[in-house]
């Protein structure tokens, strides 16, 4: 049996992080090369055993075969020759199977650990149990920016818990999580805090623009790219302009961040759900002044992170508690901690200006405040372009997210494209195609539109409307056509047709699930999701108050997957989300005549 191990810093190589849709373009080729080398070695063993030349042998279905004889891989893998193999005997540069000859890739394969998932035996990071393990709980400030003045730990100790204070960190560990919580509660009542003023989520766009870093350099500084003469072109063509905004949203993964930490004679092992195992190891080394050789991070298959699980805070907290308790400690954040203290997808503001000459865009001036730089450049062919990025001094802790910058940048751009189409008098699809010389983006637009029936008579009137949007990011392409019905403040998505292309398709069913899951997840920030805060507190940090897509929110949807066997595959988990919100916003405009320039489209005041 083949076992897939996500990461264990003691035995797996450092392949960076699960981020930026890098798994498919970066990790898959490496795994394929490793598999090809392993296959070559297995064939060599079989050739030796049969005294034949390697070229006479075939491999099929996990075995090496020759003239009716078969040796299965499991048998060959036990050979001395293989177990003694060293770096020098691993063959290099074994050619990979060409796309046209694929017999395993390109076909639907089911998950190897599906059985453990459905029978409940698969252990996620929060399920790991170690001998003598305790459960932890951590004290959180009552507001953002609050600092601990004083706290009395005795009540917690009297309740039998291990209690740790280390600067701002206060935590408890006990035999059950119930006892750990009870001890923490007793301590919390004694805590005194110093609070500081904190802004609110009202008028966040203006706040960000005021706090934009407009000069300076460095990797995190503002950026500017200009080609042609934008001001002259705008002056000649006349300027159309609009601004846009997106709020903070939270990843809200089903499994909150979790870690089990264990110390053994100065060595630290942490099992945790992170997208950056080696990054977290580094954080642990820094926190505890440990050398790499004494710090090990193991990542079991983890509850989905969606960009939200890069950092190692829970690993550090568990390790602190474990060190004080002199026992392994399991720490799993509560849902409320996950909402309030995990980093957010950035809120952002955008200013877009453009000039048209007939159906062509002749000038494009785009400024983004805070979303991240992914997807900031327009994919449309424009002779005069200025793109500016301003990082902002933000009110909340921010980090990666599915599609990250491309979500906001593409929302602003694709809604603006719709507005420009309106000015040009062209249909939104025709306007996009008229300004596009990227064949792959044009292909997904055409595929989605044709499946949707965009050029036939589309439903309109009675608050119905249709919208289209597209985008590309990290080597993959998405276009979405949406039909909505707007009734009062509610937007019902009546139909969603998407087309997606990411090069050669590796596993069709898995790809479809990724693309559709990503699009459905994207309905949340498009329609409902918005983190609201005031006076340093989150106002809607729970599943009751922060609506997320559920079964009944899944619209009738069709997904066209375009296969390009001639193109190296790229990742698929992020790009589909970037066209969801603009397609819906454009459909809402078609339905109501009201242009929506901020998200979510149906905000609620709860």
């Amino acid at each position: 049996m083949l076992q897939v191990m996500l990461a264990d810093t003691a035995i797996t190589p450092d392949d960076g992080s699960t981020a930026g849709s890098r798994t498919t373009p970066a990790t898959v080729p490496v795994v394929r090369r490793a598999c090809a080398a392993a296959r070559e070695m297995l064939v060599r063993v079989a050739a030796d055993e049969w005294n034949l030349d390697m070229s006479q042998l075939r491999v099929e279905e996990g075995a090496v075969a020759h003239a009716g004889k078969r040796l299965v891989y499991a048998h060959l893998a036990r050979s001395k020759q293989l177990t003694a193999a060293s770096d020098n005997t691993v063959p290099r540069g074994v050619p990979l199977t060409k796309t046209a000859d694929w017999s395993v890739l390109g076909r639907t394969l089911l998950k190897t650990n599906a059985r453990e998932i459905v029978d409940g035996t698969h252990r996620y990071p929060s399920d790991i149990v170690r001998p003598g393990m305790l459960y932890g709980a951590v004290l959180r400030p009552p507001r953002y920016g609050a600092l601990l003045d004083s706290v009395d730990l005795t009540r917690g100790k009297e309740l039998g818990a291990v209690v740790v204070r280390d600067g701002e960190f206060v935590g408890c560990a006990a035999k059950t999580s119930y006892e750990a919580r009870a001890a923490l509660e007793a301590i919390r009542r004694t805590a005194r805090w110093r609070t500081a003023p904190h802004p609110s989520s009202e008028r966040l766009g203006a706040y960000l623009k005021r706090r934009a870093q407009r000069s300076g350099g460095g990797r995190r500084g503002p950026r500017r790219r200009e080609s042609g003469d934008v001001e002259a072109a705008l002056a000649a063509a006349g300027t159309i302009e609009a601004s846009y905004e997106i709020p903070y949203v939270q990843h809200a993964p089903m499994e909150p961040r979790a870690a089990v930490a264990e110390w053994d004679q100065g060595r630290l092992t942490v099992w945790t759900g992170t997208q950056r195992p080696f990054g977290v190891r580094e954080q642990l080394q820094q926190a505890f002044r440990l050398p790499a050789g004494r710090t090990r991070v193991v990542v079991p298959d983890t509850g989905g992170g969606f960009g939200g699980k890069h950092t190692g805070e829970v690993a550090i907290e568990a390790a602190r508690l474990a060190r004080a308790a002199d026992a392994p400690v399991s720490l799993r954040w509560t849902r409320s901690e996950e909402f309030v203290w995990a980093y957010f997808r950035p809120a952002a503001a955008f200013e877009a200006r453009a000039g048209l000459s007939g159906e062509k865009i002749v000038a494009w001036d785009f400024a983004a405040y805070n979303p991240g730089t992914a997807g900031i450049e327009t994919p449309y062919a424009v002779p005069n372009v200025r793109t500016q990025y301003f990082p902002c001094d933000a009110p909340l802790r921010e980090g990666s997210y599915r599609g990250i910058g491309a979500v906001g940048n593409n929302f602003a751009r694709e809604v603006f494209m719709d507005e420009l189409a309106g000015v040009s008098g062209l249909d939104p699809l025709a306007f996009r195609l008229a300004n596009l010389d990227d064949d792959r983006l044009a292909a997904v637009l055409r595929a989605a539109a044709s499946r949707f029936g965009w050029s036939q008579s589309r439903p309109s009137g009675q608050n119905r409307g249709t919208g289209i949007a597209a985008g590309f990011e990290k080597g993959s392409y998405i276009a979405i056509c949406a039909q909505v019905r707007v009734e009062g403040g509610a937007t019902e998505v009546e139909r969603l047709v998407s087309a997606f292309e990411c090069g050669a398709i590796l596993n069709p069913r898995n790809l479809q699930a990724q693309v559709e899951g990503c699009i459905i997840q994207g309905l949340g920030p498009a329609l409902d999701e918005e983190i609201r805060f005031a006076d340093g507190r989150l106002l809607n940090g729970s599943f009751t108050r922060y609506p997320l897509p559920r079964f009944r929110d899944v619209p009738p949807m069709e997904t066209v997957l375009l296969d390009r066997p001639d193109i190296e595959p790229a990742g698929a988990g992020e790009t589909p989300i970037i066209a969801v919100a603009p397609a819906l916003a454009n459909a809402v405009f078609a339905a109501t005549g009201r242009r929506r320039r901020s998200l979510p489209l149906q905000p609620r005041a709860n």
Partner: protein
Amino acid sequence: MARFTIRINREERSTESPPNRPLLEVVREDFGLTGTKYGCGEGQCRACTVLINDLPAVSCLTPVSSVDGKSVTTIEGLSTGDQLTGVQQAFIDMDAAQCGYCIPGMIVEAAALLKRNPRPHRSEILDAMNPHLCRCCGYRNILSSVELAARALEANDA
């Protein structure tokens, strides 16, 4: 602290516990049955669904004292021996799991649904499943899994 006896997955087990401690923590921490998941602790995600006397319940909001002497089935106890139930098999066949964290709760719910209503309409499936959250948003394949399991039941009956 008090002693509570629960018939869990067809086996009598008891534990010393404060009466208001959530059943979720008792099955996970005292009985080592970690298939039942925490998602919110407030009844809003149903990752923690178990059967209490054959009816689905959110174990995060169920105090252990309320199940004293009752029978509780977790995902681990759904099947007997190596044989998976039809619902579990359908979730495998439909490749319904993405990260899989929500799946045990989904399966326990679907199994209970098909037991009380072996031929559910789509809307009845949606009613039962809608309170369950899947952040990977694999809703379409999960729904198809439940439908597949229902069809398989019907085929077996015929």
